[in-house]
Protein backbone atom coordinates (compact mmCIF):
# COMPACT_ATOMS: atom_id res chain seq x y z
CA UNK A 1 0.00 0.00 0.00
CA UNK A 2 2.90 2.33 0.76
CA UNK A 3 4.41 1.63 -2.65
CA UNK A 4 1.08 2.45 -4.26
CA UNK A 5 0.90 5.70 -2.29
CA UNK A 6 4.41 6.67 -3.44
CA UNK A 7 3.61 5.85 -7.06
CA UNK A 8 0.43 7.90 -6.95
CA UNK A 9 2.29 10.76 -5.27
CA UNK A 10 4.91 10.76 -8.00
CA UNK A 11 2.44 10.51 -10.88
CA UNK A 12 -0.05 12.99 -9.45
CA UNK A 13 -3.74 12.33 -8.89
CA UNK A 14 -6.99 14.32 -8.93
CA UNK A 15 -10.22 13.89 -7.01
CA UNK A 16 -13.19 14.69 -9.20
CA UNK A 17 -16.94 14.87 -8.74
CA UNK A 18 -19.31 13.26 -11.27
CA UNK A 19 -22.68 14.93 -11.52
CA UNK A 20 -25.66 14.27 -13.77
CA UNK A 21 -28.10 11.49 -14.35
CA UNK A 22 -26.88 8.09 -13.42
CA UNK A 23 -23.18 8.91 -12.65
CA UNK A 24 -22.40 5.19 -12.30
CA UNK A 25 -22.31 5.12 -16.11
CA UNK A 26 -18.99 6.92 -16.08
CA UNK A 27 -17.48 4.39 -13.68
CA UNK A 28 -18.60 1.59 -15.98
CA UNK A 29 -17.12 3.33 -18.99
CA UNK A 30 -13.85 3.92 -17.18
CA UNK A 31 -13.72 0.24 -16.30
CA UNK A 32 -14.28 -0.70 -19.93
CA UNK A 33 -11.69 1.77 -21.15
CA UNK A 34 -9.22 0.52 -18.56
CA UNK A 35 -8.93 3.90 -16.88
CA UNK A 36 -7.91 3.35 -13.28
CA UNK A 37 -10.46 4.88 -10.92
CA UNK A 38 -10.45 4.40 -7.18
CA UNK A 39 -12.01 5.68 -3.99
CA UNK A 40 -15.38 6.13 -5.67
CA UNK A 41 -17.77 7.46 -3.00
CA UNK A 42 -21.38 8.55 -3.43
CA UNK A 43 -21.95 12.07 -2.14
CA UNK A 44 -25.64 12.80 -2.43
CA UNK A 45 -26.70 12.34 -6.04
CA UNK A 46 -23.11 12.66 -7.28
CA UNK A 47 -20.10 10.36 -7.03
CA UNK A 48 -16.62 11.44 -6.03
CA UNK A 49 -13.65 9.44 -7.32
CA UNK A 50 -9.93 9.64 -7.94
CA UNK A 51 -7.80 9.04 -11.01
CA UNK A 52 -4.36 9.93 -12.34
CA UNK A 53 -3.81 13.42 -13.70
CA UNK A 54 -2.86 11.95 -17.05
CA UNK A 55 -6.16 9.99 -17.29
CA UNK A 56 -8.45 12.76 -16.13
CA UNK A 57 -8.86 14.33 -19.58
CA UNK A 58 -10.02 11.04 -21.04
CA UNK A 59 -12.40 10.61 -18.13
CA UNK A 60 -13.85 14.06 -18.68
CA UNK A 61 -14.28 13.32 -22.40
CA UNK A 62 -16.14 10.09 -21.61
CA UNK A 63 -18.32 11.98 -19.15
CA UNK A 64 -19.33 14.53 -21.79
CA UNK A 65 -20.28 11.69 -24.13
CA UNK A 66 -22.73 10.41 -21.49
CA UNK A 67 -24.07 13.89 -20.74
CA UNK A 68 -22.36 13.92 -17.38
CA UNK A 69 -20.22 16.64 -15.85
CA UNK A 70 -16.97 16.27 -13.96
CA UNK A 71 -15.32 18.80 -11.73
CA UNK A 72 -11.93 18.57 -10.08
CA UNK A 73 -12.24 19.05 -6.33
CA UNK A 74 -8.70 18.31 -5.17
CA UNK A 75 -5.22 17.73 -6.55
CA UNK A 76 -2.56 15.55 -4.98
CA UNK A 77 1.02 14.63 -5.84
CA UNK A 78 4.51 15.98 -6.20
CA UNK A 79 3.88 18.23 -9.16
CA UNK A 80 1.23 20.14 -7.22
CA UNK A 81 3.44 20.37 -4.14
CA UNK A 82 6.30 21.79 -6.19
CA UNK A 83 4.14 24.33 -8.01
CA UNK A 84 4.56 27.11 -5.37
CA UNK A 85 8.35 26.97 -5.69
CA UNK A 86 8.51 26.62 -9.44
CA UNK A 87 9.23 30.32 -9.88
CA UNK A 88 12.02 30.35 -7.31
CA UNK A 89 14.85 29.55 -9.67
CA UNK A 90 17.59 29.97 -7.08
CA UNK A 91 16.11 27.30 -4.87
CA UNK A 92 15.78 24.96 -7.78
CA UNK A 93 19.33 25.62 -8.96
CA UNK A 94 20.60 25.15 -5.41
CA UNK A 95 18.82 21.84 -5.08
CA UNK A 96 20.20 20.65 -8.41
CA UNK A 97 23.71 21.82 -7.50
CA UNK A 98 23.44 20.16 -4.10
CA UNK A 99 22.40 16.87 -5.66
CA UNK A 100 25.21 17.14 -8.20
CA UNK A 101 27.72 17.89 -5.45
CA UNK A 102 26.58 14.93 -3.40
CA UNK A 103 26.77 12.73 -6.47
CA UNK A 104 30.29 13.97 -7.23
CA UNK A 105 31.53 13.64 -3.67
CA UNK A 106 30.20 10.15 -3.12
CA UNK A 107 32.60 8.90 -5.77
CA UNK A 108 35.61 9.93 -3.70
CA UNK A 109 37.29 8.80 -0.52
CA UNK A 110 37.03 11.20 2.38
CA UNK A 111 37.81 9.36 5.59
CA UNK A 112 40.57 6.83 6.33
CA UNK A 113 40.61 4.98 9.61
CA UNK A 114 43.48 2.75 10.72
CA UNK A 115 43.20 0.17 13.45
CA UNK A 116 45.73 -2.35 14.67
CA UNK A 117 48.80 -0.09 14.88
CA UNK A 118 50.75 -0.82 18.03
CA UNK A 119 54.35 0.01 17.21
CA UNK A 120 53.94 1.24 13.65
CA UNK A 121 53.55 4.98 13.33
CA UNK A 122 50.06 5.65 11.99
CA UNK A 123 50.99 8.82 10.16
CA UNK A 124 53.91 7.07 8.43
CA UNK A 125 51.59 4.26 7.42
CA UNK A 126 49.09 6.75 6.02
CA UNK A 127 51.90 8.35 4.00
CA UNK A 128 52.83 4.94 2.58
CA UNK A 129 49.19 4.28 1.72
CA UNK A 130 48.94 7.73 0.18
CA UNK A 131 51.89 6.98 -2.08
CA UNK A 132 50.00 3.91 -3.28
CA UNK A 133 46.82 5.82 -4.05
CA UNK A 134 44.84 5.64 -0.83
CA UNK A 135 44.38 9.22 0.29
CA UNK A 136 41.55 11.58 1.15
CA UNK A 137 40.02 12.79 -2.09
CA UNK A 138 41.06 9.78 -4.20
CA UNK A 139 38.49 8.43 -6.63
CA UNK A 140 36.94 5.24 -5.29
CA UNK A 141 37.05 3.44 -8.63
CA UNK A 142 40.83 4.03 -8.83
CA UNK A 143 41.46 2.26 -5.54
CA UNK A 144 42.37 -1.39 -5.89
CA UNK A 145 42.20 -2.60 -2.32
CA UNK A 146 43.56 -6.08 -3.03
CA UNK A 147 46.73 -4.99 -4.79
CA UNK A 148 47.19 -2.22 -2.23
CA UNK A 149 47.09 -4.70 0.63
CA UNK A 150 49.41 -7.06 -1.26
CA UNK A 151 51.95 -4.30 -1.94
CA UNK A 152 51.92 -3.16 1.66
CA UNK A 153 52.51 -6.69 2.90
CA UNK A 154 55.45 -7.14 0.51
CA UNK A 155 57.13 -3.83 1.29
CA UNK A 156 56.60 -3.52 5.03
CA UNK A 157 58.03 -6.44 7.01
CA UNK A 158 56.43 -5.22 10.21
CA UNK A 159 52.95 -6.04 8.91
CA UNK A 160 51.76 -9.63 8.97
CA UNK A 161 48.25 -9.02 7.68
CA UNK A 162 46.51 -6.00 6.18
CA UNK A 163 43.18 -5.38 4.52
CA UNK A 164 41.39 -2.30 3.25
CA UNK A 165 37.60 -2.20 3.46
CA UNK A 166 35.77 0.47 1.52
CA UNK A 167 32.46 1.48 3.04
CA UNK A 168 30.93 4.33 1.12
CA UNK A 169 33.41 7.18 1.28
CA UNK A 170 35.29 5.66 4.20
CA UNK A 171 38.31 3.37 3.96
CA UNK A 172 38.92 1.15 6.93
CA UNK A 173 42.50 -0.12 7.14
CA UNK A 174 42.83 -3.12 9.41
CA UNK A 175 46.25 -4.55 10.09
CA UNK A 176 48.06 -6.91 12.35
CA UNK A 177 51.68 -6.39 13.24
CA UNK A 178 54.32 -9.12 13.13
CA UNK A 179 55.43 -10.53 16.44
CA UNK A 180 59.19 -9.80 16.82
CA UNK A 181 61.41 -12.94 16.85
CA UNK A 182 62.65 -13.83 20.31
CA UNK A 183 66.16 -12.73 21.22
CA UNK A 184 68.72 -15.52 21.05
CA UNK A 185 70.10 -15.65 24.55
CA UNK A 186 71.91 -18.93 24.34
CA UNK A 187 74.05 -18.96 21.19
CA UNK A 188 75.82 -22.19 20.21
CA UNK A 189 78.81 -20.60 18.49
CA UNK A 190 79.87 -18.22 21.29
CA UNK A 191 80.93 -18.64 24.89
CA UNK A 192 80.89 -16.28 27.84
CA UNK A 193 81.68 -15.86 31.52
CA UNK A 194 79.74 -13.81 34.04
CA UNK A 195 82.00 -11.22 35.69
CA UNK A 196 81.45 -8.61 38.39
CA UNK A 197 80.89 -5.13 37.05
CA UNK A 198 81.54 -3.55 40.47
CA UNK A 199 83.27 -4.33 43.76
CA UNK A 200 80.95 -5.76 46.39
CA UNK A 201 79.93 -8.49 48.82
CA UNK A 202 77.88 -11.32 47.35
CA UNK A 203 74.38 -11.68 48.78
CA UNK A 204 73.06 -14.35 46.44
CA UNK A 205 74.13 -16.21 43.30
CA UNK A 206 71.65 -17.71 40.91
CA UNK A 207 73.52 -19.35 38.00
CA UNK A 208 71.23 -20.00 35.05
CA UNK A 209 73.97 -21.58 32.99
CA UNK A 210 77.65 -22.19 33.77
CA UNK A 211 79.62 -23.05 36.85
CA UNK A 212 79.42 -20.71 39.87
CA UNK A 213 82.83 -19.70 41.26
CA UNK A 214 81.60 -17.59 44.18
CA UNK A 215 79.10 -17.93 46.98
CA UNK A 216 77.19 -15.85 49.49
CA UNK A 217 79.48 -13.73 51.68
CA UNK A 218 82.39 -13.62 49.23
CA UNK A 219 83.96 -10.28 48.48
CA UNK A 220 84.54 -9.74 44.80
CA UNK A 221 86.29 -7.04 42.85
CA UNK A 222 85.38 -5.53 39.50
CA UNK A 223 86.13 -7.86 36.57
CA UNK A 224 86.33 -11.00 38.69
CA UNK A 225 84.66 -14.08 37.20
CA UNK A 226 81.54 -15.01 39.13
CA UNK A 227 80.15 -17.77 36.93
CA UNK A 228 82.42 -19.53 34.48
CA UNK A 229 81.49 -20.55 30.96
CA UNK A 230 83.78 -23.55 31.22
CA UNK A 231 82.09 -26.47 32.95
CA UNK A 232 84.43 -29.18 34.14
CA UNK A 233 83.19 -32.71 34.77
CA UNK A 234 84.47 -35.26 37.28
CA UNK A 235 86.67 -36.97 34.67
CA UNK A 236 88.72 -33.85 34.00
CA UNK A 237 86.98 -32.96 30.75
CA UNK A 238 85.52 -29.53 30.08
CA UNK A 239 82.61 -28.12 28.15
CA UNK A 240 82.19 -24.55 26.96
CA UNK A 241 78.91 -22.70 27.41
CA UNK A 242 77.40 -19.22 27.38
CA UNK A 243 77.13 -18.53 31.13
CA UNK A 244 74.24 -16.53 32.50
CA UNK A 245 73.46 -15.67 36.11
CA UNK A 246 71.84 -13.23 38.49
CA UNK A 247 74.28 -12.13 41.19
CA UNK A 248 73.05 -9.78 43.90
CA UNK A 249 75.72 -8.02 45.89
CA UNK A 250 76.02 -5.26 48.46
CA UNK A 251 77.80 -2.30 46.89
CA UNK A 252 78.95 1.04 48.30
CA UNK A 253 77.98 4.00 46.14
CA UNK A 254 78.65 7.68 46.43
CA UNK A 255 76.03 10.07 45.08
CA UNK A 256 76.14 13.86 45.01
CA UNK A 257 73.07 15.98 44.32
CA UNK A 258 73.24 19.74 43.86
CA UNK A 259 70.11 21.86 44.23
CA UNK A 260 70.33 25.62 43.58
CA UNK A 261 68.40 27.99 45.82
CA UNK A 262 67.08 29.87 42.80
CA UNK A 263 66.16 27.86 39.73
CA UNK A 264 64.23 28.30 36.48
CA UNK A 265 61.89 25.35 35.97
CA UNK A 266 60.03 24.45 32.78
CA UNK A 267 56.71 22.74 33.43
CA UNK A 268 53.51 22.01 31.54
CA UNK A 269 50.59 24.34 32.12
CA UNK A 270 48.28 22.79 34.74
CA UNK A 271 45.16 23.66 32.77
CA UNK A 272 45.13 22.85 29.08
CA UNK A 273 44.52 25.59 26.59
CA UNK A 274 41.52 24.46 24.60
CA UNK A 275 40.69 25.62 21.12
CA UNK A 276 39.01 24.61 17.93
CA UNK A 277 40.32 24.71 14.43
CA UNK A 278 38.80 24.13 11.03
CA UNK A 279 40.75 21.68 8.93
CA UNK A 280 40.35 21.03 5.22
CA UNK A 281 42.02 18.01 3.61
CA UNK A 282 44.25 17.70 6.67
CA UNK A 283 45.38 21.35 6.60
CA UNK A 284 44.41 23.64 9.44
CA UNK A 285 42.66 26.69 8.07
CA UNK A 286 41.56 28.53 11.18
CA UNK A 287 42.98 27.94 14.63
CA UNK A 288 42.12 30.28 17.45
CA UNK A 289 44.04 30.80 20.72
CA UNK A 290 46.24 27.72 20.37
CA UNK A 291 49.34 27.54 18.14
CA UNK A 292 48.76 25.59 14.96
CA UNK A 293 51.32 22.96 15.97
CA UNK A 294 49.28 22.22 19.05
CA UNK A 295 46.41 21.06 16.88
CA UNK A 296 48.55 18.14 15.76
CA UNK A 297 48.78 16.49 19.14
CA UNK A 298 47.52 13.24 20.55
CA UNK A 299 44.95 15.12 22.48
CA UNK A 300 43.17 16.27 19.34
CA UNK A 301 39.60 15.20 18.76
CA UNK A 302 38.13 15.34 15.29
CA UNK A 303 34.56 15.97 14.38
CA UNK A 304 33.70 15.30 10.78
CA UNK A 305 31.68 18.18 9.49
CA UNK A 306 31.78 17.29 5.83
CA UNK A 307 33.87 14.68 4.06
CA UNK A 308 36.67 17.18 3.50
CA UNK A 309 36.05 19.59 6.37
CA UNK A 310 36.75 18.61 9.94
CA UNK A 311 36.59 20.49 13.17
CA UNK A 312 39.62 19.71 15.28
CA UNK A 313 39.49 20.37 18.96
CA UNK A 314 42.86 20.69 20.64
CA UNK A 315 43.81 20.60 24.28
CA UNK A 316 47.36 21.94 24.37
CA UNK A 317 49.51 21.82 27.51
CA UNK A 318 51.90 24.64 26.71
CA UNK A 319 55.28 24.82 28.49
CA UNK A 320 55.54 27.28 31.36
CA UNK A 321 58.82 28.67 32.71
CA UNK A 322 58.90 29.85 36.29
CA UNK A 323 61.56 30.73 38.83
CA UNK A 324 61.59 28.72 42.03
CA UNK A 325 63.03 30.22 45.21
CA UNK A 326 64.09 27.72 47.88
CA UNK A 327 65.18 27.99 51.46
CA UNK A 328 68.09 25.74 52.56
CA UNK A 329 65.58 23.41 54.21
CA UNK A 330 63.44 23.25 51.04
CA UNK A 331 66.58 22.71 48.97
CA UNK A 332 67.55 19.79 51.21
CA UNK A 333 64.09 18.26 50.83
CA UNK A 334 64.32 18.64 47.06
CA UNK A 335 67.81 17.07 47.10
CA UNK A 336 66.49 14.07 49.04
CA UNK A 337 63.63 13.73 46.61
CA UNK A 338 66.07 13.70 43.69
CA UNK A 339 68.29 11.18 45.47
CA UNK A 340 65.35 8.79 45.90
CA UNK A 341 64.47 9.27 42.25
CA UNK A 342 68.02 8.27 41.29
CA UNK A 343 67.77 5.13 43.46
CA UNK A 344 64.45 4.18 41.90
CA UNK A 345 65.83 4.76 38.41
CA UNK A 346 68.83 2.46 38.99
CA UNK A 347 66.63 -0.35 40.35
CA UNK A 348 68.62 -0.80 43.55
CA UNK A 349 67.56 -1.71 47.09
CA UNK A 350 68.84 0.77 49.65
CA UNK A 351 70.27 -1.02 52.68
CA UNK A 352 71.85 1.92 54.48
CA UNK A 353 73.18 5.41 53.89
CA UNK A 354 75.08 8.31 55.45
CA UNK A 355 74.03 11.73 54.18
CA UNK A 356 75.84 15.03 54.64
CA UNK A 357 74.60 18.38 53.37
CA UNK A 358 76.87 21.25 52.42
CA UNK A 359 75.19 24.64 52.16
CA UNK A 360 76.89 26.84 49.58
CA UNK A 361 76.14 30.43 48.63
CA UNK A 362 74.01 29.61 45.65
CA UNK A 363 73.28 25.90 46.01
CA UNK A 364 73.06 23.02 48.44
CA UNK A 365 75.23 19.96 47.88
CA UNK A 366 74.06 16.66 49.28
CA UNK A 367 76.65 13.89 49.59
CA UNK A 368 75.27 10.43 50.20
CA UNK A 369 77.32 7.30 50.85
CA UNK A 370 74.88 4.49 50.22
CA UNK A 371 75.07 0.76 50.74
CA UNK A 372 72.78 -0.76 48.14
CA UNK A 373 71.95 -4.22 46.86
CA UNK A 374 72.10 -4.59 43.09
CA UNK A 375 72.78 -7.10 40.35
CA UNK A 376 76.47 -6.90 39.49
CA UNK A 377 76.50 -9.69 36.89
CA UNK A 378 77.95 -8.78 33.50
CA UNK A 379 78.30 -11.19 30.59
CA UNK A 380 81.72 -11.12 28.99
CA UNK A 381 82.30 -13.28 25.93
CA UNK A 382 85.61 -15.08 25.28
CA UNK A 383 87.01 -16.92 22.31
CA UNK A 384 88.47 -20.41 22.17
CA UNK A 385 91.76 -19.10 20.73
CA UNK A 386 92.17 -16.90 23.77
CA UNK A 387 91.92 -19.98 25.95
CA UNK A 388 94.31 -22.01 23.83
CA UNK A 389 96.93 -19.28 23.98
CA UNK A 390 97.01 -19.63 27.76
CA UNK A 391 94.99 -16.55 28.77
CA UNK A 392 93.10 -17.16 31.93
CA UNK A 393 89.43 -17.39 31.34
CA UNK A 394 88.77 -19.17 34.63
Amino acid sequence: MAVLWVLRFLRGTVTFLITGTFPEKLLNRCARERIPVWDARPTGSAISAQTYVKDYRRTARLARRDSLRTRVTARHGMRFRLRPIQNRKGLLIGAVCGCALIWALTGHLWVITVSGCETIDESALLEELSARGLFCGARLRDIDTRSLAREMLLTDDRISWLTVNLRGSTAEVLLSECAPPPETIDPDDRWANVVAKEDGVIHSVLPLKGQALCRKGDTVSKGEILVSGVIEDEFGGSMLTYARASVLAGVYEEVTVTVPYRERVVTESPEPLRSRGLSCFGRVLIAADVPREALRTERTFKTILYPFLTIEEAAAYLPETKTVERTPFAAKEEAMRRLRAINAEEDTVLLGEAVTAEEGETALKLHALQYVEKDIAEIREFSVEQRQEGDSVL
Partner: protein
Amino acid sequence: MQKRYWKHPAQQAARLLDLPETSLTDGPTLEVGANREAVLDGCRGILEYTQQEIRIAVREMTLRFTGDDLCICAMDGGSLTIRGLIRAIEFLA
Protein backbone atom coordinates in the same frame (compact mmCIF):
# COMPACT_ATOMS: atom_id res chain seq x y z
CA MET B 1 -38.93 -35.58 -15.14
CA GLN B 2 -35.64 -34.71 -13.45
CA LYS B 3 -34.42 -31.17 -14.03
CA ARG B 4 -30.95 -30.77 -15.52
CA TYR B 5 -28.79 -28.23 -13.67
CA TRP B 6 -25.48 -28.54 -15.60
CA LYS B 7 -26.16 -27.19 -19.00
CA HIS B 8 -22.75 -25.80 -19.83
CA PRO B 9 -20.14 -28.41 -20.86
CA ALA B 10 -17.44 -26.53 -18.97
CA GLN B 11 -19.51 -26.77 -15.84
CA GLN B 12 -19.87 -30.51 -16.33
CA ALA B 13 -16.17 -30.90 -16.95
CA ALA B 14 -15.35 -28.91 -13.83
CA ARG B 15 -17.62 -31.16 -11.79
CA LEU B 16 -16.03 -34.27 -13.24
CA LEU B 17 -12.51 -32.99 -12.56
CA ASP B 18 -13.47 -31.84 -9.07
CA LEU B 19 -12.50 -28.25 -9.86
CA PRO B 20 -14.23 -24.95 -9.02
CA GLU B 21 -16.78 -24.23 -11.74
CA THR B 22 -15.53 -20.72 -12.32
CA SER B 23 -12.03 -22.00 -13.08
CA LEU B 24 -13.20 -23.30 -16.47
CA THR B 25 -15.95 -20.78 -17.20
CA ASP B 26 -15.73 -17.01 -17.28
CA GLY B 27 -18.29 -16.73 -14.48
CA PRO B 28 -17.90 -14.13 -11.77
CA THR B 29 -15.94 -14.88 -8.62
CA LEU B 30 -16.58 -13.21 -5.33
CA GLU B 31 -14.10 -13.13 -2.48
CA VAL B 32 -15.40 -11.83 0.82
CA GLY B 33 -13.24 -10.72 3.72
CA ALA B 34 -15.49 -10.92 6.79
CA ASN B 35 -18.20 -8.28 6.41
CA ARG B 36 -15.77 -5.50 5.58
CA GLU B 37 -14.48 -6.18 2.10
CA ALA B 38 -15.57 -7.94 -1.04
CA VAL B 39 -13.58 -8.40 -4.21
CA LEU B 40 -15.65 -9.16 -7.28
CA ASP B 41 -14.14 -10.41 -10.50
CA GLY B 42 -16.20 -10.54 -13.68
CA CYS B 43 -18.15 -7.33 -13.18
CA ARG B 44 -20.14 -6.10 -16.17
CA GLY B 45 -21.15 -2.72 -14.78
CA ILE B 46 -22.50 -0.80 -11.84
CA LEU B 47 -26.24 -0.46 -11.89
CA GLU B 48 -26.77 1.49 -8.71
CA TYR B 49 -24.38 3.03 -6.28
CA THR B 50 -25.28 4.58 -2.93
CA GLN B 51 -23.71 4.33 0.48
CA GLN B 52 -26.36 1.84 1.55
CA GLU B 53 -26.71 -0.23 -1.59
CA ILE B 54 -24.61 -1.25 -4.56
CA ARG B 55 -26.06 -3.23 -7.44
CA ILE B 56 -23.65 -4.75 -9.90
CA ALA B 57 -24.34 -6.55 -13.11
CA VAL B 58 -22.51 -9.83 -13.50
CA ARG B 59 -23.07 -12.61 -15.99
CA GLU B 60 -26.71 -13.78 -16.04
CA MET B 61 -27.51 -12.15 -12.70
CA THR B 62 -27.26 -9.05 -10.55
CA LEU B 63 -25.39 -8.84 -7.29
CA ARG B 64 -26.75 -6.60 -4.57
CA PHE B 65 -24.65 -5.48 -1.64
CA THR B 66 -26.48 -3.76 1.17
CA GLY B 67 -24.88 -2.21 4.22
CA ASP B 68 -23.53 1.05 5.59
CA ASP B 69 -20.85 3.39 4.29
CA LEU B 70 -20.24 1.22 1.23
CA CYS B 71 -17.50 2.38 -1.10
CA ILE B 72 -15.99 1.14 -4.37
CA CYS B 73 -12.34 1.47 -3.49
CA ALA B 74 -10.82 0.16 -6.70
CA MET B 75 -12.12 -0.53 -10.14
CA ASP B 76 -10.03 -1.94 -12.90
CA GLY B 77 -11.43 -3.72 -15.93
CA GLY B 78 -13.81 -6.38 -14.66
CA SER B 79 -12.49 -6.33 -11.15
CA LEU B 80 -14.00 -4.31 -8.36
CA THR B 81 -13.36 -3.91 -4.63
CA ILE B 82 -16.09 -2.91 -2.22
CA ARG B 83 -15.37 -1.80 1.30
CA GLY B 84 -17.65 -0.82 4.15
CA LEU B 85 -20.00 -2.58 6.53
CA ILE B 86 -21.61 -5.27 4.36
CA ARG B 87 -24.86 -6.53 5.83
CA ALA B 88 -26.12 -8.68 2.96
CA ILE B 89 -25.14 -10.00 -0.45
CA GLU B 90 -27.96 -11.07 -2.71
CA PHE B 91 -27.85 -12.86 -6.04
CA LEU B 92 -30.78 -11.67 -8.13
CA ALA B 93 -31.56 -13.69 -11.22
